[in-house]
């Protein structure tokens, strides 16, 4: 029997434990880990087959193609974020933690990004090469994806949190999340297209950075509130 008044754990310990747990689950479920990445790879490689194999044509659509595919791959992996926890009751345990929910939700979102967003960022140059993206745009592509994909995870988390209690979700998740993520897509793809034309990019980066800062500070709060509604 433990003492009835134990020392209170710091928020950081709970944050770290949640991050570690979600990464562990992702590692143990390799399918969930690989599916979004394979999807990303397949969608991008279909474009040269479906549109045209002309290098000039592909150069023109490269930025948009990679960005749209990254967005769809991120959507595909969102469902893993809370579904299993909702079904096995872990989500209730998370909500009943005395620690601020903001940090616990943030930990889950970071884990989701590390598993689904980061691989996409790392794989992007390979696909850009396949689509004849000019070499000087590689870094821009990676940097915009690096700033943009965390925003996709954070915003997507709100949508999943809202719909996790619904029996049949179908397209509703996409309907909620896609409109929110459109600005990221526009700025990200535009930045890569602009750098291919030799334009300066300061504004694009600041806008993406601002979106990231905004969603880092606000999205987990919205997700936490949505989760509370979903378990009600």
């Amino acid at each position, binding site marked *: 029997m433990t003492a*009835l008044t134990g020392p209170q*754990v710091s928020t950081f310990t709970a944050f770290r*434990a949640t991050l570690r747990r979600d990464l*562990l*689950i992702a590692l143990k479920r390799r399918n969930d880990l690989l599916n979004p990445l394979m999807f990303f790879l397949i969608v991008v490689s279909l474009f040269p087959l479906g549109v045209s194999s002309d290098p000039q044509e592909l150069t023109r659509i490269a930025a948009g193609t990679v960005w749209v595919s990254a967005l769809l791959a991120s959507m595909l992996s969102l469902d893993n974020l809370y579904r299993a926890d909702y079904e096995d009751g872990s989500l209730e345990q998370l909500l009943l933690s005395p620690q601020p929910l903001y940090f616990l939700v943030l930990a889950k979102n970071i884990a989701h990004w590390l598993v689904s967003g980061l691989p996409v960022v790392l794989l992007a140059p390979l696909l850009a090469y396949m689509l004849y993206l000019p070499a000087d745009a590689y870094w821009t592509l990676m940097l915009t994806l690096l700033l943009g994909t965390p925003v996709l995870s954070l915003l997507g988390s709100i949508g999943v949190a809202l719909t996790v209690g619904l029996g049949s979700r179908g397209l509703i998740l996409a309907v909620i999340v896609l409109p929110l993520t459109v600005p990221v897509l526009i700025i990200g793809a535009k930045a890569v297209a602009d750098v291919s034309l030799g334009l300066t990019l300061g504004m694009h980066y600041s806008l993406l950075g601002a979106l990231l800062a905004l969603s880092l500070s606000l999205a987990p709060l919205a997700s936490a509130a949505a989760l*509370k509604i979903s*378990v009600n």
Partner: protein
Amino acid sequence: MHPLLRGQALFCERDDRVLFSGLDFELKAGDLMQVQGSNGSGKTTLLRILCGLNASYEGELFWRGVPIEEDHEAFLASLLYLGHRVGVNKILTARENLRWSCALHSPVSDAEIEAALRRVGLTGYADVTCRNMSAGQQQRVSLARLLLSPATLWVLDEPFTTLDVHGVRMLEGLLADHVEAGGAVLVTTHHALSVPCTLRRLSLDKRGVAAA
């Protein structure tokens, strides 16, 4: 001295059906209270309301005399809730599950986890994936949290359902130990509890708290 948990004039309605209204109860340190009622009488709903998982109710809840929403963190720090869904991830091992769910409250060492698993009858199961366990064993993994948690108030929703005879006896022992140590337990079950301490009953069918 305030009671640990006090509910006042609780009212809850679901799908135009009143589950309970004007429900008053007090839970003091050292109390073991069994919530009774037929299927669908709102036992689970009541427990979820008390924990703050369900917000669609009317009435007042007090934790140590203070309205619960005023100091929700203090309340959560003293609460351990085990629901219908046991909160055990099937992909993780028993040890990984417990390490996380305890870290949400207060972190525990590996030795403590193994000792707790031993006491709930899962010796040697610390590193077994929970998918490979029976429902009763998974239930026991979640019950190990009772031994690892410093919480004063235990809220347990049907903790006996999948347990075998030994498991039932073990859990009854844990409940008795906890109230003896000054904790409080609120439990729903259709199983006839046999405990050495006083058992109070809160019936949702015909209202009122009775001592057995």
